[in-house]
């Protein structure tokens, strides 16, 4: 008995090793489930404050570029406003059509945005995450869409009081239904883990007409993003093994290595859309 005990004590680091590794793998697997815990992520207040120091410094370093981007974007929007104003004038000239127009299609737009600052961002891993400085107190919830001025960024996964963690496109857990602009056919967008500039769009039917350089936008099938948000442009394509679908290589419009400000999209009709979808599934 004593010998056994001596033996066990002399090998105690083996048991400790097994225990600690077990804890580590438990964390890995729990993280692989979609739901992440707030404690073990940058959403918790202490670590979020540490990493936001880096974010603060980083946002100063990029100010010049950001400024140029904003001016450009501002110009685009101004042109759009002018265009719309002209259209409005034309429609206003004929009151009858204006009435018809305003009744059917200018009903309340169901989306709302909340601007947030990126405080931590990784692109070097296979599973990347982004932390932003808005949380539950700013009415951020799980599964909200996040975009930047260039296009889609990701989906909110963990929410704490003041911070939340986003699953960006650069994460194998991210999947989103997207379509080629101008056609109604959609495929599923995911990342292959290699290059932070490219993602792939699978399951696009073979008869869809498109060419290299076409724009890929979000489809209306998810309740997360509004339809038509820029995703990227087609850079090359190939047939999939089962030969009925195309697999497209898409150059992402968002530069994930240089993210500063993002917009969280709140969809006021999301619960309605999802509950209807759920009901219809229950009826099958």
């Amino acid at each position, binding site marked *: 008995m004593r010998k056994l005990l001596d033996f066990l004590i002399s090998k105690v680091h083996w048991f400790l*090793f097994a225990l600690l590794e077990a804890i580590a793998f438990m964390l*890995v697997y729990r993280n*692989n489930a979609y739901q992440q815990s707030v404690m073990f*992520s940058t959403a918790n207040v202490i670590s979020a404050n540490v990493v936001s120091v880096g974010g603060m410094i980083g946002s100063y370093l990029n100010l010049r570029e950001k400024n140029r981007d904003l001016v450009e974007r501002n110009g685009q929007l101004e042109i759009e406003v002018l265009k719309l104003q002209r259209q409005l004038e034309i429609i206003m000239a004929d009151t009858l059509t204006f009435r018809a127009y305003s009744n059917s299609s200018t009903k309340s737009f169901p989306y709302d945005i909340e601007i947030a600052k990126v405080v931590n961002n990784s692109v070097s891993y296979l599973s990347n995450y982004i932390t932003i400085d808005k949380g539950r107190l700013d009415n951020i919830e799980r599964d909200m869409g996040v975009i930047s001025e260039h296009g889609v960024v990701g989906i909110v996964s963990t929410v704490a009081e003041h911070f939340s963690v986003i699953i960006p496109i650069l994460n194998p857990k991210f999947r989103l239904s997207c379509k080629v602009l101008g056609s109604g056919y959609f495929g599923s967008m995911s990342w292959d883990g290699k290059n*932070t500039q490219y993602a792939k769009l699978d399951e696009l039917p073979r008869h869809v007409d498109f060419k290299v350089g076409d724009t890929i936008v979000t489809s209306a099938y998810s309740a997360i993003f509004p339809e038509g948000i820029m995703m990227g442009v087609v850079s090359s394509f190939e047939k999939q093994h089962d030969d009925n679908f195309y697999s497209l290589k898409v150059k992402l419009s968002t530069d994930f290595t240089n993210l500063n400000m993002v917009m969280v999209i709140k969809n006021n009709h999301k619960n309605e859309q999802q509950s209807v979808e759920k009901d219809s599934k229950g009826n099958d």
Partner: protein
Amino acid sequence: MINIIRGTLYFVTLCLIQVLVLNNIHFLRLATPLLYVYFIIKLPVGYSPVQTLFLSFLMGIMIDILSNTPGMHVAACTLVGFIRPKMIRLFKRENLPDNIAPSFSSFSYGSFVRFAITLVAIHHLSLFLIESLALFDILYFSIRFIAGVLTTIILIIIVETFHKTPKRGGD
């Protein structure tokens, strides 16, 4: 006592450097140096296996929480902490005092570098293997592995070289 203070300083500085600076570096979009392994390498030789394991675990979990990668760094660090005492026995020639940390002077140049390369390689190998539970591509995996180990080792050698000079002048 001095070892505890030095250890804590190492721990905090390396954590902060890793999270605030190095995590933002992606050399050629491939390699991110993981300098924090230096903490595990520099633990005093005389620490018991249990102490080494526990401190490595602590380092791993700190990095994990701060870079949103639950489990991965912990698993890799714990493995390195477990293997380290065996590696010390392998690379160290004569008996060293317990409170001495591995360095160019306490080990020889060659064996310190080999010691560091072994630990860093084990660390990166386990880290990337765990990471590729989600996606696996052998070519990309090997390129990333080699690039990661190289950048980390170069950084460790640089830090170690700078580390040596003030000691010579000061003591």
